[in-house]
């Protein structure tokens, strides 16, 4: 390999990059005259192409990541919000899949979006969905394997949960609203202000989203923290009067949430 190091590089030409980057990032296009060579109209047209490429590609990236938020607010409003978000927090990483991780907080404080109070939670739910979609693969254990690990009694087992598993609690019905926006679910009447506990997991290729009881949610939180089955179920029973351990176990097993089991 040739002997090249970064210390050989002149810094003086940084200005050419700085000037163009400033123009590309600025909320409004620059007024002529421009500090570039060439015809002023052609320069303006070229800058408009770059500025539009950047904003439209990033707006599309957000719409791909937050499809339900985009449906809820409509295309024009979403583009407006995406443009404001770019102005407030342009991406700092080439990982465009991570762009928008602060979009929920942005929406929460975004005055024009106040009429949809659950928008920020929906955005947070869609981040969790995408994380599950992209997470590492792992094979879930079935009931037989778990019973074998506990010699017939799983009470003192601790579990490793699936790397794609995400738990999200909202004071709005964002799980139900999310499901209504998937094409294969028929519309239903939803009380948007009824809070929900949501489990997201991707045991195989498809991401599954389920609305679960507060007790099942608590049990999963405790299992995720490394508590034993007995401890997790006990804690869940304390916060949820109608807690049903058997049904919870079926949700966890049927959902493919467990990938390893060991005695405490």
């Amino acid at each position, binding site marked *: *390999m*040739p002997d*090249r*190091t*970064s210390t*050989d*590089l*002149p810094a*003086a*030409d*940084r200005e*050419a*990059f*700085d000037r*163009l*980057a400033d123009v*590309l*990032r600025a909320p409004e296009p620059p007024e002529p005259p421009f500090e*570039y*060579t*060439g015809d002023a*109209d*052609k*320069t*303006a*047209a*070229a*800058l*408009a*192409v*770059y500025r539009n*490429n*950047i904003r439209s*590609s*990033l707006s599309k*990236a957000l719409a791909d990541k937050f499809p339900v938020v985009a449906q809820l607010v409509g295309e024009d409003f979403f583009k407006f919000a995406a443009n404001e978000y770019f102005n407030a927090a*342009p*991406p*700092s*990483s*080439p*990982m*465009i*899949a991570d*762009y928008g991780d602060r979009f929920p907080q942005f929406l929460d404080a975004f005055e024009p979006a106040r009429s949809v109070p659950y928008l920020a939670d929906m955005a947070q739910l869609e981040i969790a969905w995408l994380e599950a*979609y*992209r*997470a*590492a*693969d*792992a094979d879930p254990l079935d009931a037989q394997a778990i019973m074998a690990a506990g010699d017939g009694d799983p009470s003192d087992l601790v579990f490793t949960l699936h*790397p*794609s598993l995400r738990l999200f609690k909202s004071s709005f019905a964002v799980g139900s609203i999310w499901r209504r926006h998937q094409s294969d679910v028929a519309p239903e009447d939803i009380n948007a202000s009824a809070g929900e506990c949501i489990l997201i997991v*991707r045991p195989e*290729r*498809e991401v599954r989203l389920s609305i679960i009881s507060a007790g099942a949610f608590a049990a999963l939180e405790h299992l995720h923290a490394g508590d034993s089955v007995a401890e997790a179920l006990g804690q869940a029973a304390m916060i949820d009067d109608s807690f049903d351990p058997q049904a919870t176990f079926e949700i966890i097993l049927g959902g493919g949430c467990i990938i390893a089991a060991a005695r405490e």
Partner: protein
Amino acid sequence: MADQEHTNPVLAPTSVGVGLKPAHYRDVLSPNSGRIGAGDPLSHIDFFEVHAENYMCAGGAPHAWLTEIRKFHPLSVHGVCLSLGGHDALDRDHLERLRIVVERYQPALVSEHMAWSAHDGVFYNDLIAPPLTEATLKRTALHIDQMQEALARRILIENPSQYLTMPGDMSEPDFLNALARQTGCGLLLDINNVYVSACNLGFNAETYLDAIEASKVEEIHLAGHAIDLARGVEIRVDDHGSPVCDDVGALYRRFIAQAGPRPTLVEWDTDTPPLGELALEAKKAADWMRAATPKTTTQTGAFENA
């Protein structure tokens, strides 16, 4: 390529491929679906090119599909975010992500762009042509060295679309030739980008192509572009959203006639059509390549490294 004993497949110079999108996964793996007038679409497609960034995740459906497709088809991994032409130091985390994708799929080709996307810690998500100066040349050569070292293989470097006359004193072909000579990388010649840049900046596309060292060109990109009107000025925008136009086809045939066949990839990234329609674009490129290839092609202008 230098590593014949490696598991990376080697593409024949006459190979024609298309950009692979998630909407095509199912059809690529089901030979009887998506049939077109000319028969099986896959009979016109020799390889698939993917954007590396779409596979920079630990697991999930994208890897499940691509792993299956890789069993049957050679791949080209095309990075679009590394900002090799930028002023910022190379993003080591992103380079490592790219290395993992290349290791996972053992593609026939790996390519990136002579362009910048990031500056001063902000990522702009576009491929922006840098000023063509000695300083940019040194910096880009260093970044290519770093990329080739990290991946432990040669890469191809692509000419960007130009919209803006940038300060600088080198011509783009001289710049690209120098990069190839200094770093040992090959060139990915995007003929649509040459045409778009020539129209926007007012240079002659044929003169540009004649100045490129043909022996360094190891892949060609073809794509469609849009004609926009911005501030009363007609400007060609490289949107990869339509069939390859006749002018680009003529430049392509001219290059092949002089240089011989090269693996050719048809890109269609905006409003991508079904696989059958994309395959017809691949067939169009293959027909152009066959018609333009000089009869004595096996002797003249063959690939330097094939």
